[in-house]
């Protein structure tokens, strides 16, 4: 069976600007793939090019074995898409929104009744079914939008920042929903800025400046040589006056990166410098493995350094 999502050297250019630059990506059935990267790195454009919303300038993209450009009409019935802006009709009730999208996908009355029941059960939206979308909270809107995006039982679902601006409880509920569906064999491509969400994904890809700079499971990324430059080590420094210490640590010549994580500092330092670090901060640094955020920051800094070296 072919991979559900497969791109080979896919590129999207808008005039002189390249929004997606030769990206290779393979996602298998039932996977939840997380797409990360700073704003403007090309995450949304990559998703849109796969959904047929923007034209591909080079390379090839295949969904479910079909070419995303030439076979777009056949693909549309089999994919779901939830943009950053929901795509809900605010003056329609939740039920009317679901009914509209099932109509748009050409569901028969019988199939709609069956799907409505299952979407309602999945999203637990029963109490709000007859409420207008505009009156729902952000979390419920998101769930309804996901319900609308899956009412036609798509095999692949694209979620573009599905949890932006909703509270933690609603976020967790949405992710539970995603995993429930992926358990049923639905494939997800999800963009996010939240590292904890990225850690939930089976595999993640990091887009930076339109190119895919790293891809793999979270564990693989954390062990990536580029994220753990040879001759360096990561330490956690826990101390009371954290802000002043950060300034001190950053000023040390052997410290490559340092940032605050909650009550402590995470620092990437030259491996041999641990005793010097302890002396400077007057605390015992604890060796740690990089967090996903550390990985991305280190990768980004390395790219920037490489570029300025050129």
């Amino acid at each position, binding site marked *: 069976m072919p991979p559900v999502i497969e791109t080979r050297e896919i590129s999207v250019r808008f005039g002189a600007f390249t929004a997606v630059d030769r990206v290779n990506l393979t996602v298998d059935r039932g996977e939840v793939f997380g797409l990360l990267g700073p704003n403007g790195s090309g995450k949304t454009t990559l998703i849109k090019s796969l959904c047929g*919303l923007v034209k591909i300038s080079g390379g090839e993209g295949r969904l479910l074995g079909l070419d995303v450009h030439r076979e777009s009409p056949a693909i*549309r019935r089999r994919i779901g*898409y939830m943009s950053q802006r929901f*795509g809900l009709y605010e003056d329609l009730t939740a039920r009317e929104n679901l009914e509209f999208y099932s109509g748009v996908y050409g569901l028969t009355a019988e199939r709609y009744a069956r799907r409505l029941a299952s979407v309602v059960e999945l999203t637990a939206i029963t109490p709000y079914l007859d409420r207008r979308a505009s009156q729902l909270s952000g979390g419920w809107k998101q769930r309804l939008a996901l319900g609308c995006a899956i009412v036609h039982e798509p095999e692949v679902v694209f979620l573009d920042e599905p949890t932006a601006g909703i509270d933690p409880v609603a976020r967790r509920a949405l992710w539970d929903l995603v995993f429930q569906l992926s358990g049923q064999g639905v494939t997800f491509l999800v963009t996010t800025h939240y590292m904890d969400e990225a850690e939930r994904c089976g595999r993640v890809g990091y887009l930076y400046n339109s190119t895919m700079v790293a891809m793999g499971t979270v564990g693989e990324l954390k062990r990536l040589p580029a994220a753990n430059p040879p001759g360096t080590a990561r330490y956690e420094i826990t101390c009371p006056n954290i802000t002043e210490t950060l300034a001190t640590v950053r000023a040390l010549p052997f410290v490559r990166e340092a940032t605050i994580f909650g009550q402590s500092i995470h620092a990437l330092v030259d491996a041999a410098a641990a005793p010097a670090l302890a002396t400077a901060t007057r605390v015992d640094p604890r060796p740690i493995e990089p967090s996903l955020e550390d990985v991305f920051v280190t990768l980004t800094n390395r790219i920037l350094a490489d570029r300025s070296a050129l």
Partner: protein
Amino acid sequence: MSLFAGAWPMLRKEFVHLRRDPGTVIFALLIPVIQLIIFGFALNMNVRQIPTVVYDQAPSQRSRELIARFRSTDTFALVAQVTSDAELEHEIRRGRAQAALKIPFDYADRVLAGRGATVQLLVDGSDSTVSSAALNVFNALILLENQRLTRAGSPIVEARPAVLFNPATRSPNFFVPGLVAALVQIMVIILVALSVVRERERGTLEQLTVTPVQPLGVMLGKMIPYVTLGFVEICWVLLIMRVVFAVPIHGSLATLLLLAVPFLVASAGIGLLISTRAHSQAEAFQMAFGTMLPSIFLSGYIFPINNMPPQFQLVSNIIPTTYFIEVTRGVILRGAGLADLWTNGAVLTAMALAAVGLAARQFHRRLS
């Protein structure tokens, strides 16, 4: 704290908004210019070039002199010769002529005899401005002709004016049927354009793009409700016209409603075209407003088209309202039927097809 605290930063910020939104500035500066040009050059209450047919029952030297006098004025434009009363009435009913000069067969004899000659001017009363101007100029021309024929004494030629179709020249009879067309076009254009642009603003249009929905499906789904609403509005306005303004409908209501369909579809098509260009509801509203001015001022609703310079007549020729106003006035005031108005129906149908076709092309580009 000053009562005007914050005025300066607000004011500066507002100028930045204006600079970032050239559409609004263009709208503010261009619309008055268009209005001025239309009012200054195109609109003229002085009636000119009234299309007139001549029914000369017995052509003679005398009748030709009289016709020449009519021809030499700017008020009448002689468009055709007719050879019967039936033909004369038909030309007016179908809107090709707004006046008819009828010279009886005994005109030359009576002029020679020095007494009792009559000349008739039949005027289409459905446009009260035109009909009163025509009657005034007609009376003046006959007066001049009398002065030429007799140096003194009692007049030889008697003017016999007659107003057809709106004998009382009531102004509601003239304005209300035209208003039906102008109002409905604006409403349909605005509602259709806004309903599409609203979906673009909210992101639902993009959502639809990833579904199997086809451009024509979206367009039909957007047009039919508003065409229906426009249809109901026409019926409603006609009812008010009949009951409140007591304007009788002389022709067949079925003809009027039948020809309303291509008119409404053309308007909805223009609305769709606007929606493919506009990025926000405000922009769509501005564009719709841009179509409103010509459809009120250049459609013949208030100012007769014949008085306009040729460039403006060209513009009025591409406005659906122009053709539908002819239909409403024709049916309501002159009792015109499908046989008289089919050309208007054909033009409206062509416009409807063109607008929907162009919109479909734009939609296709946007949606796939």
